[in-house]
């Protein structure tokens, strides 16, 4: 284990009293003195600033680059409009998921944001593409999320108010070019902002100077995305989980499925598309425990209060501060109806939990 990497805002985190933890090789803030619960609720009520500079940023260029990326990602990238962004998956030959990513069409190139833990592997994977140049971008990445994200950011950069959900744009801030998209990982409206390292602290300070904004750590980032029903790579899905089993089939449009104009042509297409045609046997479902006890990753789910083999397991779970109770996502039989009662085995006891719709909260995107 080598030295942990530090983001450009490391000093800021320390100065603001962050508790730092190792995360995917980086020394990252898990919470600030406000605490996970307070930070979570602040983000849903006002605006939260997240340092997500550990995430990988990549630019792809080349003739027909969208078509070439489609050989790794089963999304409609050729049809992605200029200055629009879309969610996608890198798939594996066995049908599993190698990583999830955001893809933006920035006119003459594609801009990708990938998970920190998968970045090296993803970049090696991308470098196999013939005729595509892969540029790893060494910039800071901030996320500003919450109902006040637009008024806050528009005070610095009025043009951002024009962006809609999943729009992407390059804007000028005091002579610095920022790459902004209207997207995030909380279920709230908000922005993700790529900024050169030498201006990252100034931008963070300018945002934190505004009364609506508080710094939010990885702890609340996890509970926010969990309530929003968003999967976390390495937990809710991995290279042994197909897109349909992760309930991410929606990211594969008809066009790339059997019978579509550009069907297949990506790793694991046979397995992935056959499963989408037939419907998956298991998939990612929401769970609401009836009591207050959180059910966390690894907890077994059973059909009955006694006996029988597990029918699934929790892949991520915890307490949902906005829900006001525990929430979880589990891999479970796809034919279980919503509202059905199943049982989570916790400390030797089986506790009733209800199969629930995802997301657990109403998202607030500006479409």
């Amino acid at each position, binding site marked *: 284990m080598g030295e942990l990497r530090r983001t450009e805002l490391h000093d800021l985190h320390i100065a603001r009293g962050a508790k730092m933890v190792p995360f995917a090789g980086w020394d990252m803030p898990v*919470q600030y003195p406000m*605490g*996970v*619960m*307070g930070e979570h609720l602040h983000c849903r009520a006002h605006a939260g600033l997240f340092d997500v500079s550990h995430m990988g940023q990549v630019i792809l260029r080349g003739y027909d680059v969208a078509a070439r990326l489609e050989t790794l990602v089963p999304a409609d990238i050729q049809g992605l409009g200029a200055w629009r962004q879309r969610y996608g998956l890198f798939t594996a030959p066995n049908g599993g998921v190698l990583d999830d990513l955001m893809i933006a069409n920035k006119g003459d190139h594609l801009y990708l944001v990938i998970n920190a833990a998968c970045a090296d592997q993803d970049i090696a994977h991308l470098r196999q593409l013939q005729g595509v140049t892969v540029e790893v971008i060494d910039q800071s990445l901030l996320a500003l999320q919450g109902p006040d994200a637009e008024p806050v950011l528009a005070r610095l950069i009025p043009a951002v108010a024009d962006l809609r959900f999943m729009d992407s744009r390059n804007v000028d801030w005091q002579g610095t070019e920022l790459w902004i998209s209207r997207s995030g990982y909380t279920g709230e409206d908000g922005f993700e902002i790529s900024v050169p390292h030498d201006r990252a602290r100034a931008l963070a300070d300018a945002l934190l100077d505004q009364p609506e904004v508080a710094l939010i750590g990885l*702890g609340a980032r996890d*509970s926010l995305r969990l309530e929003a029903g968003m999967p976390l790579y390495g937990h809710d899905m991995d290279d042994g989980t197909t897109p349909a089993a992760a309930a991410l089939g929606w990211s594969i449009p008809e066009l790339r499925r059997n019978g579509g104009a550009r069907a297949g042509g990506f790793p694991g297409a046979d397995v992935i598309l056959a499963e989408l045609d037939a419907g998956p046997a298991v998939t990612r479902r929401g769970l609401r425990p009836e*009591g*207050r*006890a*959180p059910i*966390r990753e690894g907890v077994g789910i059973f059909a009955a209060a006694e006996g029988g083999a597990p029918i699934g397991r929790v892949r991520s779970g*915890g*307490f949902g*501060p906005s829900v006001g109770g*525990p929430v979880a996502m589990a891999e479970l039989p796809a034919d279980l109806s919503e509202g059905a009662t199943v049982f989570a085995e916790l*400390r030797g006891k089986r506790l009733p939990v209800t199969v629930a719709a995802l997301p657990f909260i109403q998202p607030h995107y500006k479409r």
Partner: protein
Amino acid sequence: MLKYTEDHEWLRAEGDEITVGITAHASEQLGDVVFIELPEVGREVEAGEEIVVIESVKAASDITAPVAGVITAVNDALADAPGDVNADPLAAWFFRIKPADAAAVDGFMNEAAYQALIG
């Protein structure tokens, strides 16, 4: 006068019972507490036995019986307001125990020793 365990519990001897809670240091380390499961009144417990489950936003932990004895009371209000443990850890007691050995509490740390432990 309060005594302290190495597991960051505070103990308050009152008559022939000991009231038990967790210290401010422990509540800060745990983070926001969201769930507490208390033992049944009347249960006979061994010293070191895990008798309380406490879950924070981060993780589940156990609280152990500091001494052998019988549980005489539990703070049921915590089940509905687990956050009280963060708001006022000295007021948010978990359980009362009647120790098998009346002198059992004497061996625990005093305030100065506990402060030295947590630095």
